[in-house]
């Protein structure tokens, strides 16, 4: 990533966005004093262009675009190591959740599409079936991501072991599920929820 100079002013620091992150994650970004313990223990830090501490740092400066342009937030494994060990009770895993959500809302320009696609399909599955069906999820993911042969060798083995069920029954409470999804959409439209 090219390292653009940061011009800092009240205009370039998007503090409103930071406030949204803080509300969603129920944690304070300002509490972080950049000790780096989150990045030290993060199993995914080596895959990120902005390690976790830098994500918080950029947020402190209101520079969220720099974060969501990259892949870092999508490479968070939600393992909660950072939140557990933070000396300042900064709930970084929740901040990551909030950032992903806001990035999605903003139709974030991140290059990381596979993780986003997997997430999308997962949620679609819930909306449609109420439960997760791994076989279907995997198949659709491979088709949509254009990796038709991915994990091809695992499939037959798993079917033989009874691990991938070819058929599934629909949940009887499906209408309830759909209602939850649509009520949330409605609330957001009305601005009652972020």
């Amino acid at each position: 990533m090219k390292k653009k100079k940061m011009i800092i002013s009240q205009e370039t620091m998007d503090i409103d966005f930071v406030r949204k992150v803080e509300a969603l994650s129920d944690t304070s970004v300002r509490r972080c004093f950049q000790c780096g313990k989150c990045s030290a223990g993060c199993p995914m830090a080596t895959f990120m262009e902005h390690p976790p501490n830098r994500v918080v740092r950029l947020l402190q400066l209101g520079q969220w675009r720099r974060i969501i342009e990259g892949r870092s937030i999508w490479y968070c494994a939600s393992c909660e190591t950072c939140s557990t060990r933070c000396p300042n009770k900064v709930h970084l895993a929740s901040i990551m959740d909030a950032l992903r959500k806001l990035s999605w809302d903003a139709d974030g320009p991140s290059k990381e599409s596979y993780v986003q696609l997997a997430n999308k399909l997962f949620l679609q599955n819930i909306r449609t079936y109420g439960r997760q069906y791994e076989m279907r999820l995997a198949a659709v993911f491979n088709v949509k991501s254009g990796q038709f042969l991915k994990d091809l060798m695992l499939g037959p083995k798993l079917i033989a072991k009874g691990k991938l069920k070819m058929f599934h029954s629909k949940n009887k409470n499906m209408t309830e599920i759909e209602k939850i999804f649509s009520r949330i959409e409605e609330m957001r439209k009305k601005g009652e929820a972020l």
Partner: protein
Amino acid sequence: MSSDNIMEYSYYPGCSLHASAGEYDLSTRELFKILKIGLTEIPDWFCCGATPAHNVDELLSLSLCAKNLELADEIEGDVAVACAACFSRLKTTQHVLTENETKRKQVEKAIDAPVKLNSNVKHLLEILAADLGLERLAAAVHKPLTGLKVACYYGCLLTRPTDVPNLDCVEAPTIMERVIEAVGAETVPWTHRLECCGANFTLSRPGVVIQLTNAILDSAKAAGADCIMVGCPLCHGNLDIRQKEIEGVYKTDYNLPVFYLTQLVGLAAGLGADKLGLDAMIVNPMPLLREKNLI
């Protein structure tokens, strides 16, 4: 439901136990039957949303879990959860909705019902270690797992974060060790008990998973373990299903069977291979179990 049960629970198996982790579901039901613990599956439960839901839509995640808690509330007893991810989501939901009033109100609107936070969500480990108790568990042993060296793998979601699941100490838990030692097995101290296996990326970025999981397998092997014990179907998926693939990538040979905790405890309690779903395991446990005279 037989009347001579000593305890009753509602049961939330989660999606995986109805699919790739069928053996976890099977061994859980069979084990609890002989321990005289009643499990009533919550009718028409939903997916908890797992990691993908809270990853991009916390409100949805909270609402799905709240709905499941509402369903569970209709059945007597605490909620027994087998999957570490479901356990984590349900516990987190209870924690967040207790602490944050704004979010609670939003969730109540989304599920169109008051949030029910009364039921106690418990992982199977807690039921075995605390509710049943290690003494009663030991008393149920028919065939102690003597000589079996087990690496207990917690992964990330069973204990973290601080103050949420409250299953055990976040950084130095012993609950798995206590349970499996109660049935006669030996446990090994090892370094990667709490490291993440990267389950979130199983589908999207398997390369990441292979790297992280390899480190875990390597640590367990180095510690001299015969096998690994898990309490999470997602961890199991990576450690067991991908083990051969990892061995290929890293040109190594682990051959570490990965058991669910209920499989090993069930084995000690005298359940047969068919009732433990041992044939569903990708890394064949039979040679090891034979070598240790456990089957």
